[in-house]
């Protein structure tokens, strides 16, 4: 939560730099065929207010999604149904037919919709790394060498399976978050990477990474990378270790090396 807020501050300081290409969408509205004309800081602030008022019930006050209601996270920089500012405009204006996403109140002006687009853009990960102190080239060497990161992480098809795929990590993590990930990996552990310790009714104890768990069953990857599926009725015990399996690099890497590694990770993003 706190990281999110810090990220917001950081991103807002960079937001004016973001410019997007022309709309690929064929629409009748002239406004939707144009670039967003409302991208200033004031527009972003106005858009935030509009978003909080009109959109936050389903998408969360900070646009990070509502896990109860199912409204998706809008801060990842990627949308399932739009790949441009004008596409996002269209979705906000018209909704997505057949889903719970309804169009904005027609009384809302195009300016209001564009301002919401600008706000969402400001919440997306920055396209600009900024003045990083580290070297991405050195960072890549550390990743494969001293850091031993590739043992657990896949990047572009190469690496281990015992941690998250980092091929596009910069699409979803900011500089400060990546630094925290390196030095304090337990700060924010996605439930996908918890460790489950299951005790089978036959007495066997199996540990593994939590691939999926539901009301009646679970699936895990054991240390030999076998995919195992269990009905909870088969189990005499179930523990969830919510700590990360990743070691902290706070001591094993120097501050400069951490900066190098972060600089490398920030190069890992989809082509825009």
């Amino acid at each position, binding site marked *: *939560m706190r990281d999110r807020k810090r990220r917001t501050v950081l991103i807002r300081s960079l937001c004016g730099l973001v410019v997007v290409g022309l709309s690929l969408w064929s629409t009748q509205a002239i406004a939707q065929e144009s670039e967003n004309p409302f991208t200033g800081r004031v527009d972003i602030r106005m858009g935030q*207010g509009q978003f*909080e*008022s*009109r959109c*936050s*019930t*389903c998408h*969360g*006050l*900070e646009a*990070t999604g*509502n*896990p*109860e*209601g*199912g409204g998706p996270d809008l801060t990842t920089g990627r949308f399932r149904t739009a790949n441009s500012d004008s596409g996002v405009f269209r979705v906000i204006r018209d909704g997505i037919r*057949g*889903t*719970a996403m*309804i*169009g904005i*109140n*027609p*009384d809302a002006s195009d300016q209001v919709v564009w301002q919401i687009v600008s706000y969402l853009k400001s919440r997306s990960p920055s396209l600009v790394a900024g003045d990083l102190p580290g070297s991405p080239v050195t960072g890549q060497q550390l990743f494969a060498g001293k850091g031993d990161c590739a043992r657990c992480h896949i990047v572009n098809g190469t690496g281990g399976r015992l941690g998250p795929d980092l091929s596009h990590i910069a699409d979803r993590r900011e500089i400060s978050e990546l630094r925290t990930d390196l030095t304090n990996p337990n700060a924010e552990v*996605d*439930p996908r990477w918890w460790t489950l310790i299951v005790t089978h009714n036959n007495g066997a104890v199996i540990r593994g990474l939590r691939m999926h*768990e*539901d*009301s*009646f069953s679970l699936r895990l990857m054991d240390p030999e990378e076998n995919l195992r599926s269990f009905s909870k*009725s088969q189990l005499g015990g179930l523990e969830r270790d*919510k700590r990360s399996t990743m070691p902290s690099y706070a001591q094993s890497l120097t501050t400069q090396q951490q900066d190098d590694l972060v600089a490398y990770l920030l190069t890992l993003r989809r082509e825009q």
Partner: protein
Amino acid sequence: MTRGTVLLALVISVNLIHAQEPTTLEDGAPFFSPVTWDRLVNAADEPQNWLMYSGTFDSQRFSRLNQINTENAATLELKWAHHISQLDRNETTPLVVDGVMFITESPSNLTAVDAATGRPYWRYEHELPDDLRVCCGRNNRGVAILGETLYMSTLDAHLVGIDARSGSLLWNTEVADYQQGYSKTAAPLIVKDKVITGIAGGEFGIRGFLDAYDANTGTREWRTYTIPGPDNPDNRSWAGDSWRTGGSPTWITGSYDPELNLVYWGTGNPGPDYNGEVREGDNLYADSVLALDGDTGDMSWYFQFTPHDVHDWDAIQIPVLADIEIDGTPRKTMLWANRNAFYYTLDRETGEFLVGKAFARQTWAEGLDENGRPIRRPNMFPSAEGTLVSPTAGGATNWWSPAFSPRTGLLYVNAFDGEAEFFIRDEEYRAGDRYTGGGTDSPLPIDNYSSAIRALDPTTGDLQWEFPIKARSRAGVLATAGDLVFSGSVDGYFYALDAVTGEELWHIPLSGRMNANPMTYAVDGQQYVTMPVGNVVYTFGLPD
């Protein structure tokens, strides 16, 4: 006699003949006959049918059917599935009348199918404007029936009467102006010759009400506002003019006691949801249950669960009516597991508070005082920097139905132990726009929390057993005389539990999310259990 008059007379005589005929045809198939007021009052006596949203006027969502029971539930199998072409959340509880099932579909459509096969008779599509104002998806939760007419709420805040045999529109009444933020999603409730129906729009600064309409014509008979006007002393529970935009909607179906002639209905949040600074006071009658005269709508009593709510804890739960003994004395009670995480037993004749206890994780109150009023903890109001509170805005439970089994004496509730950060912000009211004054965020991924089916003793509020499921389920509960409890999970399981012990007896993975209540019925001697999952309505039964 004109040709039209002859035709009308012929139709009436055919209907009368139908009404007098036995309820089965020669081949044993059930035969649709008009649903009289007497049939509705005695709905529990014909458990093969499901004649109203909660099954019976007491809203126990309990069926006397016991063909499917603890001995054979493990053999349940799919009988049929009905696909809905819309992807919106599917929140319907179907009705079944003499072998015909009526299913509402998103956004405001209705279809009739053969309850034994799921194959269609007809479909009604309600034309909607493009500029709807709905807070939480394009949903509809079901219909009511009287005679041969079905009554349905629509998202553009209309009430429609539809012919049950053909699906034809009989009348279409505007209940409120949708462009001001009003909408309708709940199944109406029949009381004698009237259709009782509520309103949604608590996130748009509406002024809530409960209405009654003539079942034949759709003409409004009475309206009771859920926020009293200036001529009522309770209006002073709102600072200044804040009552005009105070919300207090009525967006779920209520209950009815024919002996007391009282309609019971829950009310939703005061508006704006999170900013209580602009509406100081208790904000009556938001977050309350109202007891209204069934003929006039006059208020007999009210009980407010959450005075001056700032967490969006609508008292939009189904009022469950049950006659039970409290401290050795028989009482006509109302059982209520509230979104604010407290369970209540009230005397439904007087509104007296009898029992109260937390049934789910909560951090906002020390408990309830002797009158059932919450004793608030300090510093739990929403703030600019965020205030962590349990339960979430979605609540410890919500609109999905609980169930009560007179056989076990237990109330079964789908409960959620969650937490959220609540934020406040300034917001001006603009007609037709959202008006919430804040919002919420989840501090952790949802997998850090859990839901459970909890069995509560209504005489004490004590937990008897619980069955944990993945957070957060949005499914209601059904109890049956087979001593089964049915419900669904957010991860797509439909399941049956032993009503006495909570032991799991059967489950089936169906993949889709469940946002509705299970119901049961029988056709030609075979019991079925129906559950909407994703955008499919599934029906299960025992092997042939």
